[in-house]
């Protein structure tokens, strides 16, 4: 259970992250590291997308740097960034006390539930690029959306059985609220009393400006278009390979390498979108192409041991 007395308030962005890590580790989650590719949201991490498929139980928590090129504002907007952090928790099957666990995490980062107004407001989640949807809420604290709370129903076109519970915290916004900061760049990144105190702006102001310029005006669209096609082709090529590896003689379905290409295609699409070269009608077509990749990867993953296929089933299949 959550502590009965509120913890001392955190003093920095990183302290909030550390407390979430500690809290969810204590609740039994594997604390994963961020995925080493550019993604638009924590959901894209294979630890969520792929692991929410199949029947194998799973519990993980991680920070995921996320990129949304169209949201870039050269570091000048107090709330908008093209690169930001999400904190992601995914538990399969969703435990019956997931709401209580979530509220406990808010207390762990210094929110006194007796003073705040926390509400679960209907907000159904859908990811057209992942062929995924779920029902849940956005969680409001004193009128501000601080998290997304979703029970996955379908991912990559597959029904989720059992259902995973997913929590996504928008870390900058949440931290700004807890730390009482009005501009994200003013937020203390490390302890303000550290020998070298660093603000969020010290870390990211320059990169926001650099990436905003590149995303909007400089990224070479021909190259990006080519990379999109290549990623799409490579994904298909990987999945078309025979499951039996001639070198080792083992059955190795390469769901994850294929999914990396899907992630790549998705991010390139976002960059093309920011460059303004995708028309409204083309947009739907691109989303459909990424979704087709995500579905193919999901189809492959559920044929693997992590996707719930037992060793004996594999032998039978062989």
């Amino acid at each position: 259970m959550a502590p009965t007395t509120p913890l001392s308030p955190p003093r920095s962005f990183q302290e909030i992250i550390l407390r979430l890590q500690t809290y969810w580790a204590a609740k039994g989650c594997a604390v994963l590291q961020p995925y080493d590719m550019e993604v638009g949201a924590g959901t894209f991490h294979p630890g969520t997308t792929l692991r929410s498929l199949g029947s194998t139980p799973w519990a993980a928590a991680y920070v995921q740097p996320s990129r949304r090129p169209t949201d870039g504002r050269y570091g000048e907007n107090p709330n908008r960034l093209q690169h930001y952090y999400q904190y992601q928790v995914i538990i399969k099957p969703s435990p019956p006390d997931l709401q209580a666990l979530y509220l406990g995490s808010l207390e762990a980062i210094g929110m006194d539930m007796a003073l705040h107004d926390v509400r679960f407001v209907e907000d159904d989640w859908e990811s057209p690029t992942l062929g995924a949807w779920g029902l849940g809420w956005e969680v409001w604290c004193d009128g501000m959306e601080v998290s997304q709370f979703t029970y996955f129903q379908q991912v990559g076109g597959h029904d989720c059985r059992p259902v995973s519970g997913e929590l996504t915290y928008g870390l900058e916004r949440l931290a700004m609220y807890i730390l009482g900061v009005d501009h994200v760049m003013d937020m203390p990144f490390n302890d303000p009393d550290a020998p070298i105190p660093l603000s969020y702006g010290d870390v990211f102001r320059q990169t926001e400006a650099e990436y905003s310029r590149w995303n909007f005006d400089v990224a070479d669209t021909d190259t990006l278009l080519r990379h999109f096609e290549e990623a799409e082709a490579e994904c298909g090529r990987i999945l078309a390979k025979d499951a039996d590896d001639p070198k080792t003689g083992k059955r190795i379905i390469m769901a994850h390498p294929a999914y990396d290409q899907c992630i790549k295609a998705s991010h390139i699409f976002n960059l093309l979108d920011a460059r303004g070269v995708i028309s409204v009608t083309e947009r739907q077509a691109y989303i459909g192409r990424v979704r087709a990749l995500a579905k193919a990867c999901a189809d492959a993953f559920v044929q693997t041991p992590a996707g719930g296929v037992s060793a004996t089933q594999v032998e039978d299949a062989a």
Partner: protein
Amino acid sequence: MPDLLIELFSEEIPARMQQKAAEDLKRLMTDGLVDAGLTYAGAAAFCTPRRLALTVQGLTAESPALREERRGPKVGAPDKAVAGFARGAGVPVDALEERDDKKGRFYYATVETPGRSADAITAELLEKVIRSFPWPKSMRWGVGTLRWVRPLHSILCILSDEEGARVVPLEVDGIAAGKTTRGHRFMAPDAFDVTGFDDYEARLKRAHVVLSAEERADAIWQEATSQAFAQGLEVVEDRGLLREVAGLVEWPVVLMGSIDDAFLGLPPEVLQTSMKEHQKFFSVRNPKTARIEKFVTVSNIETADHGATILAGNQKVLAARLSDAKFFWENDLRVAQDDGLTAWTDKLSNVTFHNQLGSQKDRIDRIAALARDIAGAVGADAGLAEQAARVAKADLSSEMVYEFPELQGLMGRYYAEAAGLPAEVAAACEEHYAPLGPSDDVPSAPVSVAVALADKLDTLTGFWAIDEKPTGSKDPFALRRAALGVIRLILTNGLRLSLDRFIDAQLVRQKKGLNGGADAADLQALDALVDAIADHGVFGAALRSVLDRIRGTDNEKVGDEGSLLRTVGDKVPDLSTDLLAFFHDRLKVHLRDEGIRHDVIDATLAMDGSDDIRLLVARAEALAAFLKTDDGENLVQGFKRANNILTQAEEKDGVEYSFGADPKFAEADEEKALFDALERAQAAIDPAMQAEDFGAAMAAMASLRAPVDAFFEAVQVNAESQVLRRNRLNLLSQIRSVCLKVADLTRLEG
């Protein structure tokens, strides 16, 4: 007579689904109980964000036993058949009786169904209701297979009578029913037992849960208005928001907060929309200045600092939201002031209205042309009407409308004012969308009316031109609403205009737009056609004159089979007729709501000038009023009698009796009197019709009632003398033509 109490306790139910869920629970359970043979005295259902509850009072303790006789196979039938019948009836074979009836000797079984307890019935029924509950969207969770709107945590189901409360034994997907519930999530999270509905409601209130949504809504409204009143302010009423907010809290705590001075310069509608859409805040207005100065938010918890932390947080979020709105507003104002609204209209050439009907800009061009045509008919200045149409949709390019689409039109008005456009133009920006619903206000300013009519007629002709008419319940482009809007604009403003002329011109413009790549000469000819329609008003004649003119110069080229002009000439009149019929259908619905019989409308629709809605309605109203009088009803009977005799004679003789009857052949006094009456009536009716005074025309017609009745009483129409007979038939013909001047009375029923 036990009472039943049910509570289905879950994670947060979306506010918009709560009311219907409570109604569904009540309907499904009470219907099911009655179907199973129970009766009850009363029932009520409730919903909070976390629970659906139902109380049924005075339920019968068990269903009555039933005794039913069933006839089986004939005696002597194979043993197998007899055994099968006994098994089906649930009785042993030796309990079957043999009895004679008309067709022979048969086996009979007496099936006795014992009464069932309310407990057993409720348990079975509730499980079924839970498993098949009609949520608009439902989900699974964990490892379970049950579907509910969000995870279902517990089921409370008890029957209580003088002996106390007992749990109804029931289990759904691992959740066993009990007598326990919980209070407020944060203020009273512990579980407690309840013994019946009154106890349940009272204990919940002690545990900071108000069960009734109306009670929560009332409490919120009371508290909000009294806090506002204390500061000399008033809460802007919004019933939809009140219902929604009451569905977001179990324990409403009303907090009033301030809006930073920096934002008070925003239009009040912007403040209100932003606060409502994003934060679910009520707006609080200063009645003296009509400005929105504060907000009311409803939290779900009482806190030690009396909501100070909550209010501070909400204010902060609001400030961030309003900073965005202010940013949009200031940017938009700058654009409007520097570039006027035409720059925004031009940008709309990149926005698709419909893939066949072109961009928003194409649409605006067509509307502007039509608004100019219509202006004269509605008393508006043609130049202003066109100008207004050109900027009326400019705000679709503004940042504010991109963010808040529901502010379209209204923002247009603000921006038109900022751009220094004439007041009539600014008003038209806002008003040209109206009326949207059947009870919406109808604009009356002539420029607004011209643009509003042009907008709707362009939509209708456009979708008619590409054959996207409403079918059955499908009307994705809200064309019925557009047609009703046109009708209401015309009627409310008492406008006299010939719809055909404008429909035809716009249909030709639509066809021209659809054939943008056609021959330049053809397109030019279409422009000439539109002008000709505007001048002469009649499509067929206009087309002919244009065709003739063009044929004169280039006989080979235009008017060939398959040419654009020929296609337009062939198709557009049909489309135009069809669209007018659609208007007539809408008008019938509209007038039926006003209490005018459908046959009365049919009788007026058959007359000339049926594209003049105002004239049609005046005629229908006069006829309806006329038919309510004795004279009117009887005259119609007399008319019908005359018409029948005449029609039969005309069929028999193969001639039309339309020569003037001659009074000198009149024999009987009644016949002479009718001649006189007809002459007098004619003299009154013609000028009345000229003046479109249908009431006066019908009053004159009514004066014929007595002479017509007397005539039929005394005179034999089919006289032996052919001269007399012909003269009398011609007299009847005169009655018919007088009566038909006002409406086609043959279409009246009864």
